[in-house]
């Protein structure tokens, strides 16, 4: 890893990330024995209990010695010691191409996703990556190997802003792909309908996913820092709106705050972690927040 240079995972990033220790709050469960204790029973070397066989159980788990002594079918159950699965949802819609000081939101999100993936793999956990806009443009299944990490880095480097955003659609389409529950990290600018987004998140919540929403915005999107009359061209739809920035700034700021407030309130109601980040701050700050 140290001999390979990736655009979004630089050696200096790795050096800094090595100092981060993440709380189990984020990384909940995996399928390999690992450092994260799970409440779910599974296959492991640490015995937990016996239970009576019911049709459909794996015959491999039947304890034939007990059957010989009792003539009954019992299954051996073990305390499952899992590794975590972290699913990174990376919004790659056209709006993520909006830049601030030569850094686009997508690039910022890629830096964050790369660092997060490295951290997860470093701890022996599994990480998956989905790149989406209005549909799933790429899906990398969970993996915990360095090779898998390299694959993710290449995916990130080859990624570019694409079609209009539809987070809800992408989440709905991704749901069958995630066979195990884990941690869902959605990195997006959330320029979408908040109700639809949380509606799409409901199945994940129902399955017990921990969900983190990382809302990325530029300062210009928050405050509309442009001056004078402009023709604003929507980067996703090409729609044009002629407006005087000075005259609508307050109203725009209020509308944006209402939108952020709506997202934050909906997230709080569903026990979803919500984090607003502007790309003029370093993405390490996000890890600082996760470490708390």
């Amino acid at each position, binding site marked *: 890893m140290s001999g390979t240079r990736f655009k979004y995972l630089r050696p200096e990033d790795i050096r800094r990330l090595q100092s981060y220790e993440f709380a189990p709050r984020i990384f909940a469960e995996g399928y390999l024995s690992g450092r994260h204790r799970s409440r779910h029973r599974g296959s492991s070397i640490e015995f937990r209990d016996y239970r009576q066989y019911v049709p459909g159980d794996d015959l491999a788990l039947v304890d034939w010695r007990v059957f010989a002594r009792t003539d009954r079918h019992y299954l051996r159950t073990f305390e499952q010691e899992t590794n975590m699965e972290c699913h990174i949802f990376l919004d790659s819609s056209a709006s993520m191409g909006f830049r601030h000081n030569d850094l686009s939101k997508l690039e910022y999100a890629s830096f964050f996703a790369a660092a997060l993936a490295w951290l997860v793999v470093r701890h022996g956990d599994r990480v998956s990556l989905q790149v989406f806009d209005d549909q799933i443009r790429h899906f990398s299944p969970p993996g915990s190997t360095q090779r898998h990490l390299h694959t993710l880095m290449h995916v990130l480097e080859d990624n570019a802003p694409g079609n209009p955003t539809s987070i809800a659609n992408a989440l709905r389409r991704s749901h069958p792909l995630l066979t195990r529950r884990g941690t869902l990290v959605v990195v997006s600018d959330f320029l979408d309908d908040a109700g639809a987004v949380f509606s799409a998140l409901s199945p994940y919540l129902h399955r017990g996913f921990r969900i983190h929403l990382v809302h990325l915005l530029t300062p210009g999107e928050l405050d509309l820092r442009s001056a004078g009359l*402009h*023709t604003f061209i929507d980067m996703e739809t090409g729609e*044009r709106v002629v407006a005087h920035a000075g005259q609508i700034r307050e109203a725009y700021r209020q509308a944006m705050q209402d939108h952020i407030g709506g997202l934050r309130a909906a997230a709080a109601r569903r026990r979803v972690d919500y984090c607003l980040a502007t790309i003029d701050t370093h993405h390490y700050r996000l890890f600082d927040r996760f470490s708390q």
Partner: protein
Amino acid sequence: MTLRFVNLFWPLLALGAVPLLVHLFARTRPPALRFSSVLFLRRVARHTMRMRKPRDLLVLLLRTLAALALVFMVLRPILFADARWLSPGARRNVVLVVDRSASMACNEGGRTRFAAACAEASEVLNGLTAADTANVVWLDARPRPVFPDMGVNRGFLRETLRKARVSTQAGAADEALRMAVRLLARAEGRKEVHVLSDFQEATWRSCAPDLPPDVAFYAIAIAQGEPANVAVADVRTKPVTGLPGEPVDVLIDVANHGDVPRRLDLFLSFGGARRRRDVLVPARETVTALFRQSPAARGEVLVTAALDIDEDGLTDDNRRYHVLPVREHLAVGLPEEHITAMPELVRALRALDWVQILPLPASLDAASEAPDVAFLLDVPAHDARRRQLLERGTTVLWQPPAGTSLASIDGLAGAEDGAAALQSGRDFRLRVVDRDDPALHLFRDARYGDPAAGTVRERLNLPRPRGGAGAVLMEYEDGVPAVVRLKGARQQILWNLPLGAERGDVARQVTFVPFIGELLRSHRLRAGRALAGLAFTAGDRLQRRFPGVHPVEEIRLHDSSHAAVDLQAAAGAGAASVFLTPDAPPLGAYTWHEKAAVLGYSVVNFPPAESDLRTLGRDRIESLGARGIADAATLHILHNGREIWHILLAVAALSLFTEALALFAFERR
């Protein structure tokens, strides 16, 4: 106001629509800005569109204004304030009435009002074309034109204006305007009278110009303000004629025509004597300073009053002259028939060594010398001598004869009907009524006796004067007036005190002579005749009459610098010689010489009314009939119009600048 265009090409006005077309077809294209999402922008942009509309309208308005201004600038409009001046072919006939009265010598802003008036007059002349005619009328005491008729030689008029000097005379505005109208009477074309004056209130207050309707009267007000001015308004003596050794009160009126009180040094020169006095004159007030002097010998005393002041609106009025005639005797006229018929009166007069009896013939001619006081006793009311003497300023003691109609007696007219009835048969006693009268002042205490001593056996039964027509000095015990000083412009004493021995014993009383003396001394000539031929106002020609025959080559007149003044002889009446100056001399004191002897003085004084520099207000000037009140440049514009292309250019530039500012302000928001 009317506009005329030099480059009349109306299709150019279509260019004014260019901004509108540009506005409609070339809408503003703001710079494009790729934005992550216009979701929220679209919600709030509707408000922006509402704001853009007034801004666009303002920009359109300013651009259209600028375009129209530029188009009109190309059309070269000329603005005429008065449509009457839009007849370019009509010939103009302009009479410039230039005020050169004394007030025009006032210095304002480093030059006199008169110099400013001449400069403005030249400007008016410069605005005339070769076909126009012009003339200048000088407005002073005797207005006169430069040309006898309207002329085209404007160069000469300009040269005359350049060389002209302000006079020290008063102004006769009515006469000057009448003269201007006469000059324009035969002119064809537009007739204009331009009055260039300070419109001093004293000169123009009573002016009522009667201008024909075809004559336009334009006032060019020169005065810039009302500077403070002090002046010696009057110098007079009391009595008017003096006697050697007799104290004379010299009364000097000092006027302050400013708005602040002034403390002044007033100098008096009385013959060879000089005196000084501080005088405090309140604002807009006149105070009288009193000096008491005694002439030493008979002759004429030149009295000069002068103010010592550094800054003043006018300086010519700070000095004033007066001549006090000093006689050896007081001339008391008696009709020739009285001299023998009234020995008591003659004896009393001869007892006064400073009285000279002057016999009055039955008819006075113009050349005969008028006495200071005249006794006309038992002289009918219609006697010509009484009227003549009163007109010459002589104090007349008149006793009407019995039967004189009361209506013909001055001061008693209207008191009662009927005639003056003679009353006799008993003794009528007298008493003094007004002991404060100068004639009776000496007898206020008993030291000099009672002037009312004695009795009268025959008198006229006269009524008392009514309504303040006269002051009774002495009366009979029954109230019938005996001596009445009649009030009025002329000095007359009604005498009801018979002097004959058979009519009473008043003339035999010891107090009679001093009473007559005091009466003569205090009621002698007060004004008028004594100064005739002595004091003149600026603008008058000096004229002096000397008794006897004097060849003109032996009479010389010198001014105060001993320079000789031209003289000419006039026809004298009787045994007298009359000399006069061919022109009105300047202010000052002049000395008449015959060989080495000084015959007397004549003085030329500043017209007092000119000292008040207050001017008429604009409304008052307009009430004179002036169609316009302006300066010459404005009148030039009136006649020739004003090109306003530069104003339009400024409007266009200002509009564009304002548009740029507005756009900048909008962009900044």
